[in-house]
């Protein structure tokens, strides 16, 4: 009697386990370093997740506010054990944990954002945000009256330094007398400190505030003082409608769809990709009405040139703060030089230490 029950149960189990595999959705997991509701970095990635979630046969899930290090390894391990097909991890510190998990689960595809390591089933990807920052620099350089731009920055790492230099080059292209003052907060999301940093820049005469952190604190400071601001990550105009000019933004959705398609077609290759505006991963948000039409026109023309590949950002001669030539005249900095950028160009006031 009992043996028969066991037999029936086994059959049932077989049917149940076989049934979902026949029409199985592609399971995609996302690991975020901060809460998604922050209008910042993770928010932008989550917009990408929602983009692919609408596709037929794709189910997504996410875990937010996962600290880098051992905790993230546990989260990714959990997803891989549940037979996720594709896992995106979107912070630099997830790189090594992901590599470890990737080796244990060869059938799962892993994608890491902003790192540099790959494996047979793990690729990495990032965007050339500096292109959009150059454009936002053109806007800032055109709008300033004091010729002082303030830049509240997170950590002195190449990604941020590159962005500040590109912003400065953009501003100098339309306004040779402009200077960019930098304050480091050593935070990615701390509204109080980041607002205070912006206020300190306003006190030394800055009349356009740009930022490379995820909180809208600096936007608040600019609006309270009645000057202009440039957002980051996503359109931040809702936080400071009277001061927000534009924002360099991330747009991950179309790229995430490409990865999903490649995994489904079995054509995924573990590459390291660094796409720019030509791929639509980075963009400039629509400019506010406060930006004059001729400035908007010039910026959009430059955007066109960058997108088509005609215009490059880091074209020599480029000198660092000490006057040393870093990119010779007529040459363009290669990706190696960009990825390791650790100096400020002339026109930036601040230190990279």
């Amino acid at each position, binding site marked *: 009697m009992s043996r028969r029950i066991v037999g029936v149960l086994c059959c049932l189990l077989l049917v149940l386990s076989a049934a979902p595999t026949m029409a199985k959705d592609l399971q995609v997991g996302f690991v975020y370093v901060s*809460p998604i509701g922050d209008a910042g970095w993770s928010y932008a990635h989550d917009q990408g997740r929602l983009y692919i979630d609408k596709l037929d046969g794709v189910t997504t899930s996410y875990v937010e506010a996962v600290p880098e290090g051992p905790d993230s390894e546990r989260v990714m391990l959990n997803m891989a054990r549940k037979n996720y097909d594709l896992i995106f991890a979107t912070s630099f510190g997830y790189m090594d944990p992901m590599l470890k998990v990737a080796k244990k689960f060869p059938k799962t595809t892993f994608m890491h954002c902003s790192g540099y390591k790959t494996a047979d089933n793990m690729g990495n990807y990032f965007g050339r945000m500096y292109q959009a920052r150059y454009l936002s620099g053109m806007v800032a350089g055109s709008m300033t009256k004091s010729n002082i731009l303030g830049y509240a920055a997170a950590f002195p790492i190449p990604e941020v330094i590159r962005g500040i230099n590109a912003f400065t080059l953009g501003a100098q292209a339309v306004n040779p007398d402009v200077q960019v003052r930098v304050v480091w907060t050593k935070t990615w999301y701390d509204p109080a400190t980041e607002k205070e940093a912006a206020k300190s820049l306003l006190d030394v005469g800055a009349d356009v505030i740009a930022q490379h952190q995820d909180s809208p604190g600096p936007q608040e400071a600019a609006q309270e003082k009645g000057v202009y601001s440039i957002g980051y990550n996503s359109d931040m105009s809702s936080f400071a409608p009277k001061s927000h000019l534009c924002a360099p933004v991330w747009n991950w959705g179309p790229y995430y769809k490409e990865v999903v398609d490649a995994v489904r077609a079995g054509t995924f290759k573990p590459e390291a990709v660094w796409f720019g505006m030509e791929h639509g991963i980075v963009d400039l948000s629509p400019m506010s009405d406060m930006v004059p039409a001729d400035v908007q026109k010039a910026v959009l023309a430059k955007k066109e040139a960058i997108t088509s590949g005609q215009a490059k950002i880091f074209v020599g001669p480029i000198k660092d703060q000490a006057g040393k030539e870093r990119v010779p005249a007529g040459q363009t900095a290669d990706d190696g030089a960009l990825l390791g950028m650790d100096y400020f160009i002339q026109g930036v006031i601040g230190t990279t230490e």
Partner: protein
Amino acid sequence: MNAELIIPLLAAAIQSGTPILYATLGEILTEKAGVLNLGVEGMMITGALAAFVTAQVTGHPALAFLMAGLVGAVVGGIHALVCLWFLGNQVVSGLALTIFGLGLADYLGTPLIGQTAPGFDKLALPLVHGIPVLGPIVFQQDILVYTAIIMVPLVWFFLEKCRWGLNLRAVGEHPEAAAAAGINVLRYRWIGILGGGCLAGFGGAYLSLAYTHLWTSNLTGGRGWIAVALVIFAFWRPGRALLGAYLFGGVMAFQLRLQAVGTHLPSSLLLMLPYFLTVLVLVFSSWKSRQTDAPAALGVNFEPND
């Protein structure tokens, strides 16, 4: 540095010192009653969250501020319950309160991240705001800065001149003697803890209603701990707490401005300043410890004889 930079710096010092001032005054009140409460950070952050939510729901910042005080007192009440009722270890209970408060605010507050709430804007006081130098520094702040300043003489008056304050201090100095004199020791300790929690909640509310109008997890960012250290620096005196809180706020604002001016010091060194000052303050205070007004029965539980 010229006056154009120094005046905004001092104004910023007062602003970033205000949340610390509220919390420090609260902890002075608690410790004067003989209870050590290391849960300031936890009470601050729950107060900050309560204020943020109330402001969002009702649209009344003043109501939100009071709500923060209420919630801070309720969270402080847990400490009172553990230490006064169950005679638990005050250090352990306080630490637990900090961890609990941070965790609770993180859990409840995560969906609110990135949202804004109505808060207090700058309110220039009539007549006095025009005074050169002093006007822009002190009298063009938001209303919570003024109430914090008013709290200082109030707490001082309560502790030094008021009969209840005298009883509260007696309870902190020698609870047995106070009990023998007919003072209800536990009642005054409840008052000290709840009052301290209320003020810590106000401090948290300042962060989410005036300093920024945004919410994030860990909005307090260790300011509660600075308040605990400042109590020692202030020798348990409200007036010195004001000085210490503004000094701390000043150092926080100063290091950012040093960078903005374009100094070539590494930013990591400048960011260390507030914490370096904390250590310095503690060394300095313990060195001069003989002159302090530390309550003699601080941290010692009292068991009433029934």
